[in-house]
């Protein structure tokens, strides 16, 4: 009797502090990373996806409402802004690759980005998905931290945007090889850039594991898409949703 009461007290004390939410988040991500390494970096074993599933299950079991969890985990969430700013460093390194290839790269990015939005939004709308969900698709090919910033600016759920961005990244990382082989793409920089345009950081880390040149171009595409997307996507969104 006495003992169970004190366990309840401890539980009440702990669930009021951010400690539990932070612990669950970091532990789940650590397990995700471990599984990702164990699977020889198979894109299906994406650490973010694994962490999201684990955290969702654990807070469900603890009967912890999402709001309570987020209040604790917001310390991790807060760093997103700083992480976005620090993307300037990989972009700066990537810009040295631009050289004479700037024009084809920019055109490839703009067309790829437009196709990404129009095809996803078009198909989801045609198949009857509701507006809230479709809104999350606009910045799915932009790196998640920037995509979430864009979503906030245009009044769309950052959560859905992040989830669609992660799924897109995983799909791109899995499918890119087959698509690019089918198209007969031979140069690494072209392969890498196309992966980066479509599937941002997750695609880029896949590209790095195949060829450093492809990886560098994929990161460059991710950075350029992030900046251009932040400027153009709100505008495209308002144009389509007048």
């Amino acid at each position, binding site marked *: 009797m006495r003992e169970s009461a004190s366990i309840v007290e401890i539980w009440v004390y702990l669930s009021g502090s951010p400690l539990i939410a932070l612990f669950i*988040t*970091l532990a789940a*991500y650590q397990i995700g990373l471990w599984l990702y390494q164990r699977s020889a970096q198979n894109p299906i074993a994406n*650490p973010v996806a694994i*962490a*999201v599933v684990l*955290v*969702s299950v654990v*807070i*469900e079991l603890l009967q912890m409402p*999402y709001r309570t969890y*987020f209040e604790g985990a*917001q310390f*991790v969430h807060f760093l997103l*802004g*700083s992480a*976005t700013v*620090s993307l*300037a*460093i990989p*972009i*700066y390194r990537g810009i040295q690759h631009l050289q004479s290839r700037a024009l084809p790269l920019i055109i*490839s*990015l703009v067309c*790829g980005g437009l*196709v*990404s939005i129009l*095809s*996803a*939004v078009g*198909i*989801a709308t045609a*198949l*009857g*998905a509701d507006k809230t*969900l479709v809104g999350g*698709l606009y910045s*799915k*090919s932009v*790196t*998640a931290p920037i995509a979430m910033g864009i979503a906030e*600016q245009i009044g769309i*759920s950052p*959560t*859905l945007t*992040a*989830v*669609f961005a992660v799924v*897109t990244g995983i799909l*791109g990382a899995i*499918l890119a090889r087959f*698509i690019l082989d089918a*198209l007969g*793409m031979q140069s690494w920089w*072209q*392969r890498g850039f*196309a992966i980066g345009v479509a599937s941002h*950081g997750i695609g880029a880390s896949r590209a790095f594991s195949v060829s450093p040149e492809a990886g560098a171009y994929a990161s460059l595409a991710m950075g350029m898409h*992030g900046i251009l997307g932040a*400027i153009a996507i709100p505008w495209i969104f308002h144009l389509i949703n007048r």
Partner: protein
Amino acid sequence: MIAGLVQILFFQGLGELISKFVFTTLPGPVIGLVLLLSWLMLRGKIDPSLALVADGFSQYLGLLFVPAAVGVVLFLPQLKEHAGALISALVVSVVLTITTSALILKLMHREPKKDA
């Protein structure tokens, strides 16, 4: 490392201010990113403590969006209802995007093939 963090927070804050008062459609951190990028290009080098912080962030970038992504639990009924539409949209879109970007590069850039 602290020096790098100070620079990043400085540019982030500057970006937030500009986002609030000047370019209201752009997210503050993206403006901060562009400012920091311009600063790096102006200086022509990255100092080691900044590189250290940035590499740390990019190594564990995924961790930072876990808390927001877990919010997906709130959307599960909606997502289930429209799962077919969303999965088709995501898969077809990623295939078309990669195809478009790749073909444009291939068509626009005909350089002598280097067989290795």
